[in-house]
């Protein structure tokens, strides 16, 4: 079955359609990770986007047990160079194409994804339509311009609170589209984790008596997350706050900063970030299209703790007086390099939890690795 990706400027990329036939609209972005397509697809932050993977072979290990970052894929569409027709892996529970079909998502293969990436690099992120139908390109472009704004956070976040019990400190996670790895991390280290909807008022959160509140990652423009920004503003100074990705931007906005849209975003697992406190550089997993305006932080009593080595964008903040720390990137990984786990550990310790040893598993422990 033929399929097409039509960009808002009328450019058409043809390919073979797989997954569920139909038409979908979204923001077209590229991710440069060489592994981790399953994690990308299931990361709620990609909601509303048509994702192209720059790595040309996708689907080699199928869908593996335990690797998904949420209960379903949230991308609007997927565009790849080659879908692996014969996936195999010991933890594999299904094929990528079947998985997408099952979740009603259309994908394309056989696309010159490098040409598409170059296009996005030069022109910046664009909106696009992915279709398996015959509608003419102009028609799709017209429809694209009629797409109204949608509340992406509401689409991905939980509608009601849920909790994982542990013996350690209590962490409340404001779900803007949280990845399971984040919950897994704190849960693995014995925290009680309560995940609340993004619209939860601050007093309700404080009533839960948390040791800290984490604003999670999530999709879309941070400036649209009005409820969460309001909640964050009220929580400032009342409990320990930590923000990741969209959560970082929401906290920055709550503290009075501004955000802007990057030309084509940061999406991949090879972004070097300098920790200005130690001067160390670490590779980070990133997935964001917006960033905090550096100048807007002046006079807010906030220190920039991390910056991107390539374009000097703000990658982490720390309030000078209040217990507020944020990271633009993903220390919880899945996908991406796990160089910054110590920052999660530091937050955990500040909550009163047991920081994990920074060591690889011992030999017998490695035996128990399968499926985690």
């Amino acid at each position, binding site marked *: 079955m033929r399929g097409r990706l039509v960009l808002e400027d009328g450019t058409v990329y043809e390919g073979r359609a797989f997954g569920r036939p139909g038409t979908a609209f979204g923001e077209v972005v*590229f991710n440069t990770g060489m592994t981790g397509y399953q994690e990308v697809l299931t990361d709620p932050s990609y909601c509303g986007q048509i994702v192209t993977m720059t790595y040309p072979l996708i689907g080699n*290990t199928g869908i593996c047990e335990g690797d998904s970052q949420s209960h379903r894929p949230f991308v609007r569409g997927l565009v790849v160079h080659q879908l692996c027709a014969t996936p195999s892996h010991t933890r594999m529970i299904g094929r990528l194409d079947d998985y997408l079909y099952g979740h009603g998502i259309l994908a394309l293969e056989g696309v*010159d994804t490098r040409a598409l990436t170059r296009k996005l690099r030069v022109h910046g992120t664009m909106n696009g339509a992915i279709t398996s139908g015959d509608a003419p390109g102009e028609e799709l472009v017209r429809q694209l311009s009629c797409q109204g704004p949608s509340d992406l956070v509401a689409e991905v976040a939980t509608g009601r609170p849920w909790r994982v019990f542990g013996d350690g400190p209590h962490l409340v996670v404001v779900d803007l589209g949280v990845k399971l790895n984040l919950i897994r991390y704190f849960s693995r280290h014995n925290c009680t984790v309560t995940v609340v909807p993004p619209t939860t008022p601050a007093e309700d959160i404080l009533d839960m008596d948390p040791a800290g509140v984490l604003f999670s990652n999530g999709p879309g423009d941070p400036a649209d997350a009005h409820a969460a920004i309001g909640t964050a503003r009220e929580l400032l100074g009342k409990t320990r706050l930590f923000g990741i990705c969209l959560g970082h931007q929401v906290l920055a906005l709550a503290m009075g900063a501004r955000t802007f849209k990057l030309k084509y975003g940061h999406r*991949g697992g090879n972004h070097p970030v300098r920790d200005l406190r130690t001067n160390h550089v670490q*590779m980070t997993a990133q997935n964001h299209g917006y960033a905090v305006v550096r100048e807007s932080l002046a006079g807010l009593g906030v220190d920039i703790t991390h910056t991107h*080595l*390539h374009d000097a964008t703000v990658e982490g903040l720390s309030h000078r007086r209040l217990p507020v720390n944020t990271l633009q990137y993903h220390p919880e*990984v899945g996908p991406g390099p796990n160089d910054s786990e110590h920052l999660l550990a530091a937050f955990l310790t500040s909550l009163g939890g047991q920081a994990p040893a920074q060591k690889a598993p*011992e030999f017998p422990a490695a035996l128990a690795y399968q499926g985690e």
Partner: protein
Amino acid sequence: MPLRTGLEKVMVVGSGPIIIGQAAEFDYAGTQACRALREEGLSVVLLNSNPATIMTDAEVADRVYLEPLRLDVATQIIRAERPQGLLATLGGQVGLNLAVELSRAGVLEQYGVELLGTSLASIQMAEDRLLFKEAMERAGHPVPLSAIVHRLSEAKDFARRVGLPLVVRPAYTLGGTGGGLARTYEEFELIVARGLKLSPISQVLLERSVEGWKEIEYEVMRDLGGNCVAICAMENIDPMGIHTGDSIVVAPTLTLTDRENQKLRRAALDIICTLGIAGGCNVQFALDPRTGQYCVIEVNPRVSRSSALASKATGYPIARVATKIAVGLDLTEITNPVTGATSACFEPAIDYVVLKFPRWPFDKFRGANRSLGTQMKATGEVMAIDRTFEGALQKAIRSAETGADGLYLRELASQDTSSLWQALESPDDRRMFIIAELLRRGREVMEIHALCHIDPFFLEGIKRITSMEARLMEPGALPGLLRPAKELGFSDARLAAIAGLDVEHLQRLRWEQGIEPVYKMVDTCAAEFEATTPYFYSTYRARENEAVPTGRPKVLVLGSGPIRIGQGIEFDYSSVHAVTSLREAGLECIMLNNNPETVSTDFNASDRLYFEPLTAEDVMSVIRLEKPVGVVVQFGGQTAINLASEVAKHALVLGTSVESLDISEDREKFDRLLTRLDIPRPPGGTAFDTTQALAIAHRVGYPVLVRPSYVLGGRSMEIVYNDEDLFEYMRSAVVVSDRHPVLVDRYFEGREVEVDAVADGEDVLVPAIMEHVERAGVHSGDSIAMCPAQSLAQPLQDTIIDYTRRLARGLNVRGLMNVQFVIKDNQVYVLEANLRSSRTVPFLTKVTGVPMVPLATRIILGASLASLGAQTGLVPPSALVAVKVPVFSWAKLTAVDTGLGPEMKSTGEVIGVDVDAAEALAKGFLAAGVNLPGAGTVLLSVADRDKPVGVELGRALFGAGYHLMATRGTARSLEAAGLPVETVAKLDEGSPHVLDVIATGQVVLVINTLTRGKVPQRDGFKIRRTAAEFGVPCLTSPDTAAAAVRAMLHRKSRPLAGPVALQQYEAVGRAHRSTGS
């Protein structure tokens, strides 16, 4: 951190001659290192004995010492040069070992030399088995469980504790003799008992077997500030058990999930932090595909073959960055030269599949054991890039130049299935072809996987190729399948063969359908940023072409492909210089090559690099796109020369014409030319069958030299002494056909002489005449060459130059040429003329200072020797004598006869230079690893015809105080000459026999000359093999032996002469001449 203070002069140690396991990758690394140091304003002193390298060029370092890589020599250099720092992690294991020796001997401390980069303690921790194991255990990284045991009962205890299978390795037996893999307890007891008996110290190492696990490598980098990055993850298609140098490798990993990938990456970075590495490092893991469990196999605390591959695979200049780190810079302070904007502190993102395919020497060593295991056997490798696995695999196979134009070997098609299964069980170099053949016969992927443990992902890829073949064979299917077939990487030649068409027809069909490749960039960042010095690869599975030709006039230079015996790094040297000269001449220079180890494929060596197979089709596609004003073929060895006639159909071949190339290679045409030019050559003829061969032999008289036409490196070349042997040769050694006749020539046992010349069609410039130590019959590549010629009377020299000039005019040679002569009874005969760069060009360039390749390049572009202000004729010889000594890789090639003959066997070369010929010879031998002991026992076992020489050598050795030992016949002749000799028993005379005295280290040198004819000489072969395996120098030509004896006697009489730097050659030569006269 900025450049460290107080550092002004740095000594760099190279890796010496090319041997199996240590090849051209260290030329690339060393060259990058020297340049990186000089960029920082540092003065560089280089020690490397390999003249064939770019790194030993006078322009690369401030002082270049082409001297033996030995403690005494290095100490002398340090004393003379007083560097503040030593960089030893870019010269392979040889460089590292020398640094360790220098440190242990206290030399570094004495002269205040700091070891730059990774500390000695870290190196030792990484290299010492026990220290490494302890460090890994401390850091919580699993290593294969192992134990050292001295008794069977201990072994059984261990086995009960950890379970089977276990690998058993007896201590101190060569090549792991007597070891093995035990899967059952019966096997285990048997192997351990045998191992304990065979081990001289009754000790065996038991190790948990990780056979069949995936082998994954990470190239990682750490700076002194503690920042670390993983440059590239590589996956060996071959599971654990086959040396990574012999494995087919892909990058990035293709069968790992992100979780596995990140877990191993983290472990690799933790490990280099634990070890305290500063610079590049390679970490190898075994990963159990069933459980995800891993263990650390090995760490190389230095730049390695894998890092050269990783560097070319990602575009990240590992050697350059490692060097900058060693002198104190942080990763963040180094820019990524490919993007020009981002810093070196990042991890490359790849958006293609890289596949490395080794090049094995089994085509030359028909008797060699070609099965692959833990001992590396490949001499070189190729790298292919495509957007699919199948495309990369098929490109790599074409690039390897083994005659296969796809995943198909005719010889396998005729074998029955059960023998193919068997062959797969003990894998050899043909395993990918065997798998394809089995799939063609309908065998299942999972069946094959169960046997060879190659991940199903790769097997499925091969199956897609064979399934496409099956579809293509259906009548009328071809036109519709052309695009999908090209997307799977099929070559036009293979498609034509499958479809039963000729290649031109198929090509027309393809062009009519508009199916042409597009080219994509290697840019380190998957197109996320703009790249300034990218390189390109082709793909059919894309639409957008990124290699948009510039408007400038451009020249395409064809490289020489993989390093193999007969075509080594010397041709890369010439290619690189040709590119540089063309760029200096204001032309845009495009390089086409596929060897990841070399300088020519470095990101900034040319204006534009195409990483492509060197086949007619792939070259043609680049020509059609770039439309160069001309193509240069004479620097890329026989690989490029063989493409000349195809290239000529689409573009202008610059320099010597294709017609002349053809004359020089076609026996009949060349004979006619020589007759016309009145140049004698040994009589002979061309035979299309055995009767004709016998007739020629009878006409010219025995012995005769026989070989197939159109060969490289003397493949299948033999000297034949009688009818019987000739008959045998014609019957078994070659496949004679109308297209491939056999050449039969009279064999003159004379002095062999060789010249390289620069010609402009009118005149020639000959930098020097090289005289071979060995008489004709030993391949020129395996001969010791002395420069200038040591024993040629002036009239003979004049004749040689005259013949060279006549040939250059007769063939209208424009550029380089190499002519080989034999001198018999004061008569000069021409053996052959190669109208291209040769093996000796870098050697000669360094020794004489004549810039041969730059001159040739200018001539190719239209200049003349006169217009370039170059002299003509023979350059007056310098007072310095240079000796080129071949180096072999016998230890790696089991079951190969080490005897020298007309087939080339050496893998590399070294140089010895001094004003005194004997000293130069001694330096050459020492650099080649032939120790010249001052005392000890020399074992002689020479053929009857060499008995007189044997006696002469015996007398000289005895006179110098050496003890003589000989086998019966040789002993008798020595005794007859009045020399005391100890007779040692031959093999059939019972133990202790001749092999025992070699194996037990009783002799310091073996002289064993070859018996004539093809009668299987079991004793001689075993003597030579035993010497090779126990590392005792064994000389098989009486001439080499005489030279070695001369060098030994010289060495006894005098201490080692001081090292001379390349930059001092002229001054030293002049000084010597003025004092001498």
